[in-house]
């Protein structure tokens, strides 16, 4: 009896700890929202108001008129979307091979993929810059699409491999016995069964491209082709842009990946701890 009481007291204590941790960890997110929704005058009041009592939601949308954020978001959407569309077929085929075959070629490919994930991207930057410049791909979305394709390809293949690993191969074997070709078995049986994990991996590729700043900042200088990360980054240290506007743009840049993340969270977490580390 006292054991149960003690346990429920403990449970309450941990619930309080959990709630406190969430409040502390999510405070930056909360503060971004609050600042984005406030008039500039109340952003600078002292002491700052920590509560959502003086919000002016229409300000959030004023940023569309005052900055280029809509164009940046559209560019980001195109770059991340097309890069993901290019990555998915290549990564799916590779992932299938990584999951189903055991031979020297597969081991080398697996090693190569892991190594590219460990690699510092900084050494790629100068070559990309020079090669893209010679090909006339600087200052356009195509170059950035290619860079994001390259950047997300190995990790997507790796995550997709975990998706295929979770699907038993017996059904494909049965289809082969029934006269289906291997490609037919992949397309009609393995892929449909692995779809949740494959979609999660594709979403991961999209989020990664959405997030990408390093290449975007270097390969694009013409602000008509800026993506959201570069546009938002350009506000850092720029005193002509108000904190309200910066936080509003940060909010719109954050929204798509966070929403996508919520949808695939479970697969994402399982994939990440399975594919990312266990190998």
């Amino acid at each position, binding site marked *: 009896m006292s054991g149960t009481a003690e346990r429920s007291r403990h*449970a309450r204590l941990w619930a309080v700890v959990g709630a406190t941790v969430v409040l502390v*960890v999510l405070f*930056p997110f909360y503060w*971004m929202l609050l600042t984005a929704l406030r008039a500039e005058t109340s952003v600078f009041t002292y002491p700052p108001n920590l509560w959502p009592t003086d919000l002016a939601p229409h300000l959030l949308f004023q940023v569309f008129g005052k900055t280029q954020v809509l164009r940046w978001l559209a560019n980001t959407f195109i770059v991340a979307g097309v890069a993901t569309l290019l990555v998915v077929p290549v990564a799916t085929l590779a992932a299938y091979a990584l999951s189903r075959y055991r031979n020297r070629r597969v081991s080398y490919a697996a090693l190569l993929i892991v190594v590219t994930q460990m690699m510092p991207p900084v050494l790629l930057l*100068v070559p990309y810059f020079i090669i893209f410049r010679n090909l006339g791909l600087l200052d356009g979305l195509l170059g950035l699409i290619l860079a994001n394709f390259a950047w997300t390809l190995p990790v997507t293949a790796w995550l997709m491999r975990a998706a295929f690993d979770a699907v038993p191969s017996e059904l494909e074997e049965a289809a082969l016995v029934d006269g289906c070709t291997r490609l037919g078995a992949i397309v009609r049986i393995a892929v449909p069964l692995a779809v949740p994990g494959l979609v999660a991996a594709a979403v991961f590729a999209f989020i990664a491209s959405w997030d990408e700043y390093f290449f975007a900042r*270097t390969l694009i200088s013409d602000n008509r082709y800026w993506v959201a990360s570069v546009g938002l980054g350009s506000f850092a240290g720029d005193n002509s842009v108000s904190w309200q506007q910066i936080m509003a743009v940060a909010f719109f840049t954050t929204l798509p990946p966070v929403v996508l993340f919520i949808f695939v969270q479970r697969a994402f977490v399982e994939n990440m*701890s399975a594919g990312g580390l266990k190998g």
Partner: protein
Amino acid sequence: MTGVAGPGADGDARSGAPAPPGLRRRLHRLLGDPLAEPGRASALLLAPIALGIALFYVGPILFGVWASFQAEGTAMEGGRFAGTVHYESLARDPRFRNSLWITVVFTVASVVVTYVVGLLAALLLMRSFRGRTFVGSALLVPWSMPLVAVAVIWGWLLDYQFGAVNYVLRASGLVARSVGFLTDPAIALWSVGAAQVWRLFPLAMVTLLAALKAIPHELYESARVDGATPWQQFRHVTLPGIRSASHALLLLLGIWAFGRAFTIIFVMTGGGPAGATETLVVQTYLEAFRYFRLERGSALGTVVLVLSAVFTVLYLRARNERHG
């Protein structure tokens, strides 16, 4: 062996509209099943990704290493071999030594703190309490946020004049005057490190939670029967149970903090104040794209690559140990 599952078969229902059977059959007779033999199948399936990696990784890296041996300003137009001048000048450059040191401090500190915070969060999620699922999901939010957004949000939180953190510190009497989180060279590295940890700890949390869940209950029960204190249980059951996962996680975090941490630092401080947050990666970027010394930048990039490669070999060893 026709290569075509009959209409209405299970596979057809899933894959939408298949090609007309006649055409499919003719193609099949012509080609056979190109993927029937495993060796050939793996080669064909892996060919596209191999081509992608060759074009976008292997080739550019070789080009980068080549560029690091060319005379300044020549790599764009075919190059002129200059030997190891850039490496020699780096070896003499105090700025390079500064970046090396900053990188070591940043890597070690951010990895250790990310790991500890992630472990504490994972241990919290191992308790049973109401709302645990929500807490678990909420703690993943930082992980899904774009790096640049993280950087500007933290820049705002840590602002000298109007930042919320300085307000809380002053109001609570912990400091008399505002702290220059991003302007004081002694503090700036820890500020960008905090943002980095905030963004990355959920990865550690998720990985360690999976490892913690895999520890059999019986181990804890028998430890309790033997009269082990909670600390002894943690020390002798929990820690050994998560050791191999921790090993791989620490190396991965280390490799990423060393070679990939750029965006948060660069957007928050640009490497300043006075080089206080200038890691090797930031210095490489500045060298190549602010001072436009592409060849010297390539030499720096090569150094980063070689050092990363050492960590990567260690990581692969750790991983193989876990599987072998």
